[in-house]
């Protein structure tokens, strides 16, 4: 072998190795993106599952509560004035503080602390007249300090927590009066303007209702349409037109469906704005082609021999389809439906257009109550400036991703467990 060919061969093998490396690097990059991404979300979000409390003492002084009755009824407790009692509970942390500076202490707990003081007494009426310890929700800023998300060594004017508050915080922390507990209220509270109080209950219910509405609208229509197209449609121009239509519809940007929802469902049919009903219908229009395509693929996968066997037994076309083909195709259809719904679950843009971004601080009970959805909640919170919302967004993303993973797992299980393999 001459030298020229030897060199060439070496070059060729080098090129081969290089090319393999390009491929490996490409895959490595894609996996790295995913890893960085997940790391970011988890490292920012896990702390949202912890809630910070400040423990102090409250004196349920009858005089301050303005309760006159000797043995007060539930109503008396309900209508009492808790302002001073609650105020004192906080200011008692540093009795030496001049009155005009009290605000600094009050700012360390959530603005709803008065309600918390009230709720404790309503739950334990015998606390009346006694001095008892109480847990108050720490303010967003104290919460972030406690979780170590605020740098403490920057100049005071750049900090949201001033030196005095830090001093009180350190004192409480040393005494063990700062508690960190699992944040149940994140799952049970609706949205709020205050990061420490905001929860995902309202948007979670909004998502559930939207998905149910979406399923109710898209699944029957899509399955019936798929059956028609796969089993009964004559081969003609019009059928072709429907097919092209479905394929293109599957690739229309989601925001266009939002415009459709706005222009037709809200403006023409006057359906209630900002509700999961409209959101669900909008999403169902989007999911329709996805389910039709999945259902057709699984109908197509049923071997013709099954149809022939049924037809040969004298079953009509409709009977063959309804008794044999459709039941056999169901696992594939269902798994395609779940995947379509999972896609709809993550949609944001169309829901924003139909007004599901409104601030909702009640938990919706029906599909016609105003609501947000989990992805929209992510959008709303990420537009807020407070640091406390960053961890809420990340936690909300974690919930959303968990939801998606569950749905995809369900799709896998349906497919693998129930699908018959045709050889």
């Amino acid at each position, binding site marked *: 072998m001459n030298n020229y060919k030897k060199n060439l061969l070496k070059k060729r093998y080098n090129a081969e190795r290089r090319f393999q490396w390009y491929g490996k690097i490409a895959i490595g990059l894609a996996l790295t993106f995913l890893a960085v991404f997940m790391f970011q979300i988890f490292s920012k979000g896990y702390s949202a599952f912890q809630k910070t409390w400040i423990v102090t003492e409250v004196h349920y002084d009858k005089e301050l509560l303005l309760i006159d009755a000797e043995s007060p009824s539930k109503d008396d407790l309900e209508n009492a004035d808790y302002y001073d009692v609650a105020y004192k509970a906080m200011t008692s942390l540093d009795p030496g503080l001049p009155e005009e500076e009290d605000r600094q202490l009050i700012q360390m707990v959530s603005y709803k602390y008065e309600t918390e003081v009230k709720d404790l007494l309503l739950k334990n009426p015998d606390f009346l007249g006694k001095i008892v310890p109480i847990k108050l929700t720490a303010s967003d800023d104290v919460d972030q300090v406690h979780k170590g998300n605020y740098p403490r060594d920057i100049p005071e004017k750049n900090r949201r927590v001033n030196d005095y508050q830090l001093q009180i915080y350190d004192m409480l922390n040393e005494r063990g009066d700062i508690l960190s507990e699992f944040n149940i209220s994140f799952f049970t509270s609706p949205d709020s303007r205050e990061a420490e109080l905001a929860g995902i209950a309202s948007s979670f219910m909004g998502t559930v209702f939207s998905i149910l509405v979406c399923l109710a609208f898209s699944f029957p229509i899509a399955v019936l349409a798929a059956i028609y197209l796969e089993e009964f449609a004559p081969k003609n121009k019009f059928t072709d037109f429907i097919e092209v239509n479905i394929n293109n519809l599957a690739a229309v940007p989601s925001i266009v469906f939002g415009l*459709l929802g706005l222009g037709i469902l809200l403006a023409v049919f006057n359906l209630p704005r900002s509700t999961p009903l409209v959101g669900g219908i909008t999403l169902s229009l989007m999911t329709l082609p996805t389910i039709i395509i999945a259902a057709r693929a699984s109908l197509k996968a049923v071997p013709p021999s099954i149809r022939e066997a049924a037809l040969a037994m004298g079953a009509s076309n409709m009977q063959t389809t309804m008794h044999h083909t459709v039941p056999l195709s169901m696992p594939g259809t269902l798994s395609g439906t779940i995947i379509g719904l999972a896609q709809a679950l993550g949609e944001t843009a169309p829901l924003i257009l139909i007004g599901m971004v409104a601030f909702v601080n009640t938990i919706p009970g029906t599909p016609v109550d105003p609501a947000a959805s989990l992805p929209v909640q992510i959008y709303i919170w990420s537009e807020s400036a407070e640091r406390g919302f960053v961890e809420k967004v990340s936690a909300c993303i974690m919930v959303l991703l968990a939801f998606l993973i569950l749905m995809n797992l369900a799709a896998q299980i349906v497919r693998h467990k129930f699908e018959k393999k045709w050889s």
Partner: protein
Amino acid sequence: MNLILVTFIILLAFTSYYFGRKKALVIQSSQRLTALPKFYGYYLAAWCAAPALIIFVLWSVFEPSIVKTFILQDYTDQNLTKNELQLIYTKVKALAVGTYTGNITNFLDESANKYIQLKGIANSAKVAIILAILIFSLSFAYRSVQKNNRMREPVEIFLKWVLFVASLGAVLVTIGIIFSLLFEAIRFFQAVKIFDFIFGTHWYPAKTFVRDGQPDPELMKDAFGAVPLFAGTFFIAFIAMCVAIPIGLLSGIYLSEYAGRGVRKYAKPIIEILAGIPTVVYGFFAALTVGPFVKEIGNAMGLEVSSESALAAGAVMGVMIIPFISSLSDDVITAVPQNLRDGSYAMGATKSETVKKVIFPAALPGIVGSILLAVSRAVGETMIVVMASGLAANLTMNPLESTSTITAQIVVILIGDQQFGDPKTQSAFALGISLFIVTLFLNVIALSVVKRYREKYE
């Protein structure tokens, strides 16, 4: 009322199913049935429910607009604009149901009474007509059952029609899209010349906002130029493709040609997770992590970088699109027949030579098709740009500056309460229809290219 009516129809349908089946069993004692007894039931139930429900739906769709016409007839002599009429109608409706809080004029009170009256008439008429139809169609069907006519065929024909109508659903959605977009867009183009929209280079719709009265036509001319948006959209899509095409294509090739079964089994689904992550999550990631990161790097190199740079949005969008390109090109490459590979290997070609010189050219149409689909996806992507790129429409080709896109503007314009009839709101629909046309164009080409490619190797 409506709920009761529908429940009644459905309950009646169920009853007639059992009734029909029973009748069939009675017939059976004297003559041979033409179909299974349950078809007698289906037949009766279908005749009971279908006509009544169809009339019910049609009635519900048309009733409001007919009532509206009647009410507004009284106002025709007052020279009111369309918007004012709409407002009056809303007030009348609110007054009628008792949620109106404004000043009650005599005129309004009268109209509200008329509204209640009309609604009452409409409701009783609806119930009467539907009951009549129920009786008529049921008696017709029952006579047919009695005569022991053929039962299976009509039921199956009916079912087939139901299936057919369902398949029209997709067409209906398309028509809905086109109408909703076109209707508002045409009104927009009455206020703004289509030429100014397509070729204008300033997009600043907020400028046209005027309390009461018409905005200055000169302002309108210069506020709705969509060129910066089109440019921004394609620019960000271009950045996304610069990230997605090399990474996606190379990983697709590696997965289909090199990776062992083990790697393929795990790497492929893991990469596809990237496609399953909701776009709003990417938006958050781009805005919070990538944007500041790009800015920091740029500043360290002494460059002026916006914290909402097109580069950050485009790069994150590119990551989102990687799995589309990788799995589509993986599919396309796998579809290249094995005997072409064998032919090349048998000539002594290495794997990469085979990929580059035989497989890639053979798969090229399919790959181009998938890339076009990916571009269409990038053009239509909304949340990433809304959250990570700017909202001001700059006409720029500098990836470090902020720019805006069609989708982002639609969201910005329509977020919160919209005033229908305002050119700013309508402009969102004009943008929507341009977006629809652009993506439709890309999709049609891509789908036909991919389809032809598949046919070639099947």
